[in-house]
């Protein structure tokens, strides 16, 4: 728990200090969503019914942007070696870094999703569902992304490789996230189940991959 809190605190401080990837991801999310009404014109016709799905697609792309440096900075500056040499399981470090990443990207995206949703002609009574779907789904984006970012740590072109690896894995989140935002039966439960499953699996995958990167 001490490790978890120490890493969480440091990563939040780093996210706030640098503005870095997390701030950029949020900005990308907002700008990307704003482009659709501009491109499709003032008539809400083409947007009707598509708003929440579009928003979920932009959220996936924005999450991608912030993954590249998730472990890379620690790996390059030697901090990962020191964390790996400690007795606590590396999965604790992964979970703490994921929590910090979600607080810095997923949570702000969830907060602004209501605003962006109304801009994209999502009906007022569905905005609550949209926010809920983001709240339940964005942790899965962080966790799946963390596993992929850890796996591509040693590779050249790591960033591009992460994107190619991660987008197919994001598809279930996209499907159930968009469906949950539209209030389809059972979609929200499946989305939450997906997030819980990644919470159980992703830290183990990521920590094994990090261990492998350290031992190179």
């Amino acid at each position: 728990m001490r490790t978890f809190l120490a890493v969480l605190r440091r990563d939040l401080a780093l996210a706030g200090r640098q503005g870095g990837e997390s701030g950029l991801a949020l900005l990308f999310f907002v700008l990307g969503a704003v482009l659709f009404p501009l491109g499709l014109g003032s008539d809400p016709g083409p947007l009707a019914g598509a708003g929440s799905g579009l928003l979920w697609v932009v959220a996936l792309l924005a999450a991608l942007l912030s993954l590249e440096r998730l472990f890379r900075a620690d790996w390059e500056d030697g901090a990962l070696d020191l964390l790996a040499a400690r007795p606590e399981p590396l999965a604790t470090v992964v979970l703490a870094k994921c929590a910090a990443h979600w607080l810095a990207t997923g949570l702000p995206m969830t907060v602004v999703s209501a605003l962006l949703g109304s801009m994209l002609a999502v009906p007022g009574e569905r905005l609550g569902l949209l926010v809920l779907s983001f709240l339940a789904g964005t942790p899965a984006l962080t966790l799946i992304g963390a596993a992929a970012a850890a796996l591509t740590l040693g590779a050249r072109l790591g960033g591009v490789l992460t994107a190619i690896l991660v987008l197919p894995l994001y598809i279930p989140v996209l499907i159930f996230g968009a469906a949950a935002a539209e209030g389809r039966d059972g979609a929200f439960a499946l989305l939450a189940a997906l997030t819980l499953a990644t919470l159980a699996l992703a830290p183990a995958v990521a920590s094994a991959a990090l261990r492998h990167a350290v031992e190179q």
Partner: protein
Amino acid sequence: MLEARGLACERGGRVLFRGLDLALAPGGAALVTGPNGAGKSSLLRVLAGLLPASAGTVAWTGRGEADFHYVGHADAVKPALSVSENLAFWVRLAGRGSAAAGLEAVGLTTLADLPARLLSAGQRRRLGLARLFAAPAPLWLLDEPTGGLDDAATDAVEHGLKAHIASGGAAVIATHIPLGIEPAHRIDLGAAVS
């Protein structure tokens, strides 16, 4: 305190060392020497558990297994955090010690609030070494600890190392310079390979 038996390490198909035995008692130090590429860093990484040995075992006796500090080539300094925040993270992780004591030992107290990105290479190295003094641990694994340091900082490290050994700590040090200590063991990796 630390006991390694029959250690062997291969990197890229090349045998760096094999059949290496090392037993360190409290208050003991081992000096690892050898030319570049002889496997000094690899030996320290194997001892720290960061690199799997191709043969042999490493065992700690007495205290908890992870009661050691590893100082590698990278200093694990976050440029965006201040000098004291950088050190405070490692102190919090260890759950003991104080960042102020660590900064004091390496002469960085006056720079405590400076963003670490403004530090010179030697100052960053000192900040990396400050972990040793901020959160005490019985075993130190040091990889070229004085690389890039000026004379005053080298003296401070020597002084700290002597105090650590005198108080019953142990250390394994890969270095090219004598460091003014009388090591209980000398491991010459250059000779071991050829």
